[in-house]
């Protein structure tokens, strides 16, 4: 906490903005930034200067950025500070954060910048209490968030595994501290098995938490509907649209994949594009089962109907079925009435008999995929939904990064335990690494103190003492 290391964090509000600023502070700030920055040699530059360049990972451009350089003591924290203004994509921001941590930066604790600023004399004591309050509330919120995001029983699972590990540590401590007594020894094979189990879970967690699948792979979108309603055309229209919209950098770091569309810097991934093309081309009936499989995988469901041909009862039934399917999940249904260009009416005035085909409250977007009419309405809605989704996901990214670090460190020390077990090292050295991993697992579950746990466990479980 009073470490003199270099810290980094996202310092613009969570949620997608046009730009996102990541701030590095500490003695290594310039060195760390330089390691991934393709541009001027920063150490030769004056403080309080701006520099343009590229952030690169393995020769691949992650983003083009503006970098503000502040040299100690003339910065917010009083240390060397580098602020990197990236494009506001959650994916880019988390990639840049990841690069910085790989270069040795630590994710800042809640309020840590302010604390450093204070400690370096950048604030007066009157402000201290306010800062303290901020830290207290931020810590609490961060922890709550961390716990909330551990869905799927992971947090409970880690807690359980940690307890098992404590049990084992106490067995090892028992053989260390009570060697003279009639005690059983900790079974090394059981310990190996436990360590492997924890390692497996940790690596799963690390994978899933590293950047967040949504940001990594794009928001999954399903286009469902009867054959021949224009699903394939819509897909192509969106894909083409994208190429027009997307500038060289926006969006950016990833090779464009066939089924991926970037709107406002956010990726959307269309599910089963091959299937969509195939069924539309062959006029094959896409079964309800396949439709629901797609709905399952999607975060956004586009239900596409032929505005002219469709039948009200069928639309109603389908909407009900999809809604039943997605009820209680974090998914959105958008109804699209396609082919409005094929009717004999003015596109600005959709006739009532067509509007009436749709149930109340389910007014569709009337569009023509072929003529690209009202496609912008669709992309605007997609973007809006995505930003809402990502704004919560983005907060997760920040606390996630801290989390990710704890998970990685727990994994590192457990790998050492595993190695030690293979080499048959003695319990005192095993215990050293187990304690470290307990410490980091505790950072995730919010329970740090272990000594009391261990001794308490020994005294309650084993008959010891002469």
């Amino acid at each position, binding site marked *: 906490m009073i470490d003199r290391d270099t810290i980094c964090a996202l310092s613009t509000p969570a949620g997608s903005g046009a730009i996102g600023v990541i701030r590095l502070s500490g003695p290594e700030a310039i060195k760390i930034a330089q390691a991934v920055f393709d541009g001027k040699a920063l150490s030769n530059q004056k403080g309080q200067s701006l520099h343009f360049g590229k952030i690169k990972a393995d020769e691949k451009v992650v983003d083009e950025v503006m970098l503000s350089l502040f040299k100690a003591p003339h910065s917010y924290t009083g240390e060397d500070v580098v602020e990197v203004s990236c494009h506001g994509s959650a994916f880019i921001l988390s990639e840049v954060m990841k690069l910085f941590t790989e270069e040795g930066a630590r994710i800042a604790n809640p309020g840590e910048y302010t*604390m450093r600023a204070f400690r370096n004399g950048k604030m007066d004591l009157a402000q201290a209490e306010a800062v303290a309050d901020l830290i207290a509330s931020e810590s*609490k919120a961060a922890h709550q968030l961390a716990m909330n995001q551990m869905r799927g029983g992971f947090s409970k699972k880690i807690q359980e595994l940690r307890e098992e590990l404590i049990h084992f540590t106490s067995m090892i401590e028992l053989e260390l501290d009570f*060697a003279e007594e009639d005690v059983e020894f900790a079974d090394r094979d059981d310990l190996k098995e436990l360590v492997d189990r924890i390692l497996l879970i940790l690596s799963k967690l690390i994978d899933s938490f590293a950047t967040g699948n949504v940001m990594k792979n794009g928001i999954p979108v399903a286009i469902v509907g009867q054959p021949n309603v224009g699903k394939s055309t819509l897909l192509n229209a969106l894909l083409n649209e994208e190429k027009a919209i997307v500038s060289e950098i926006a969006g950016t770091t990833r090779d464009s994949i066939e089924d991926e569309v970037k709107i406002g810097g956010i990726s959307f991934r269309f599910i089963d594009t091959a299937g969509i093309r195939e069924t539309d081309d062959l006029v094959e009936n896409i079964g309800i089962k396949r439709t629901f499989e797609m709905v399952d995988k999607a975060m956004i469901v586009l239900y596409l109907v032929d505005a002219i041909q469709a039948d009200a009862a069928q639309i109603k039934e389908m909407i009900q079925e999809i809604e039943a399917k997605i009820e209680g999940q974090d998914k959105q249904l958008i109804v699209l009435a396609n082919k409005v260009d094929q009717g004999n009416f003015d596109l600005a005035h959709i006739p009532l008999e067509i509007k009436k085909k749709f149930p109340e409250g389910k007014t569709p977007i009337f569009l023509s995929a072929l003529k690209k009419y009202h496609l912008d309405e669709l992309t605007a809605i997609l973007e809006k939904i995505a930003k809402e989704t990502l704004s919560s996901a983005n907060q997760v990214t920040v606390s996630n990064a801290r989390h990710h670090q704890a998970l990685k460190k727990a994994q590192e020390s457990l790998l050492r335990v595993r190695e030690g077990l293979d080499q048959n090292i003695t319990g*005192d050295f095993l215990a050293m690494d187990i304690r470290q991993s307990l410490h980091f697992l505790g950072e995730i579950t919010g329970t740090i103190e272990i000594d009391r746990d261990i001794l308490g466990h020994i005294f*309650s479980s084993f008959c010891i*003492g002469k």
Partner: protein
Amino acid sequence: MLKEYDVIVVGGGHAGCEATAAAANSGSKVLLITMNMGTIAQMSCNPAMGGVAKGQIVREIDAMGGYSGIISDKTAIQFRMLNMSKGPAMWSPRVQSDRWLFAQEWRLMLEKTPNVDFWQDTVMGLKLESNKVVGVKTALGLEIEAKSVVLTNGTFLNGLIHIGDKNFGGGRAGERNSTGITEELIQLGFDHGRMKTGTPPRVDARSLDFTRMEEQKGDEYPSKFSFTDTKPLSQQRSCHITYTNESVHDILREGLDRSPMFSGSIEGTGPRYCPSIEEKIERFAERNRHQIFVEPEGWNTVEIYVNGFSTSLPMDVQLKAIKQIKGFENVKLFRPGYAIEYDYFPPTQLKHTLETKLVENLYFAGQINGTTGYEEAGCQGLMAGLNASLKTQQKDELILARNEAYIGVLIDDLITKGTKEPYRMFTSRAEYRILLRQDNADIRLTPISHKIGLASDERLRAVEAKERQTKEILDLLGSHSIEPDVANPYLEDVGTSPLKQKVKLSSIISRPQVSISSLNNHVNTEQIGLNNYDPECLEQAEISIKYDGYIKREREMADKMQRLEDITLKHDFDYSALSSISSEAREKLSEIKPKTIGQASRISGVSPSDISVLLIHFGR
């Protein structure tokens, strides 16, 4: 009648004796007041010193210039280095002692120490001037003046002995207790509590059948505690091991209704890790036997200490049950086991120097602080006596850090966390266990102690020589290579992979299976001159090669935490004004008044975010 002293030590047990020696040897005039000059340095419980974690403490006391190590060496009847199958941080020296020689040797060493006076009397109260102690008042009506007072009352404060349904006042079997001090301290505003400990029966060796027990011999090559030139044992006595059984347990169970533990007549808290035999059979009912160590009390005596059979059951139950133990069929009791309750003062009322927060120049050490064990008492006595002495000479206090010594861990635990049961040291209490080894206690502590004037020049020179030699050995091993054809037969012998090309000696010594001594036996290393070195230095070099990675990592962690220890907190800071920390943290911080941010972070109930807040107020 008596002159004015710098330091008065009240009590002549392990804490009192070390306090007396440390105060006198650091240049103070000391008076040791004991209720009985005949029972100085009594081993009230088992006749043994050291053991896991405790052995490390004795080595540390010795490295600081205390006497416990020297006396243990001189009076040992058996030596064992425990935990040799584990890493070097776990190696723990332990001796069986001759109980009478031990006490006698302590008294003689104190008599030979300049500046130590003795007085047999009972201290009934303190002489105070405002919130400063300036002397003591005794049962014989004396008022003796001193600049500071160290209380080491052991189990004597309102001591209450229990045997079955009988109980009576006493400080130890056959000795009076001491009253008055507790009452005065309570009046001064001290919190107090009751603790309980117990001891097993002593029996007649002539009535035991040792052929029915397992023999436990001392080490073939005994080592020793002291870093000075004491001699390792040339002959040793054996202990024996036997076990209780179901019929022993049945008899014990029948007597439980007359046990003071279960009838509720004992209110004090006993140690969970040192339970009486009746507690063991109650709490671990599934175990059908418990280990019993049959320990001789000296070279010549027939008295035996029945380790593992601590009890406060009625005498008739004790005798009936113990007779069922294998080898004990015809046993004759010398003294029954008993439990004793006594007053202690929660140690969170102390500073790290062991001076009380409430009364200036008053120090506490040993069981009065809620600890148990000779070694735990001895090291507190040393630190209290030393700090009392330093303060009277207006010198800086000495506090050992958690990464410097078990002594530091022990005192910091007491002061920061307090204790609800008798506190015993375990290696697991030390977060930097790998650094706090018995083999390097002198390297860690002698220079510190020498600097403040306690450890002698001679001790310092010995440490310097040890470090110099170790470095020379490391240089030799790092500069000499060994050819595959020379090393391989040996390497295969000890079960490790052969060399393909020549390597530095240090690189094969880093293998777990290889040791310098066995390498020396198998490979002619004479020409590089290793044989000229002291085995202790060879061991030092070997440990630093083999465990280099672990030691470095532990050192790094310790250094990282040290930064929190370097930020001091104001003693009179008003924590209740900090609205942004939790109410539990506010309460604990106000009570304990930690000295540093590091200490604050160890208080249970103080969270990392509370620490951030403290950093804001104090970190600049």
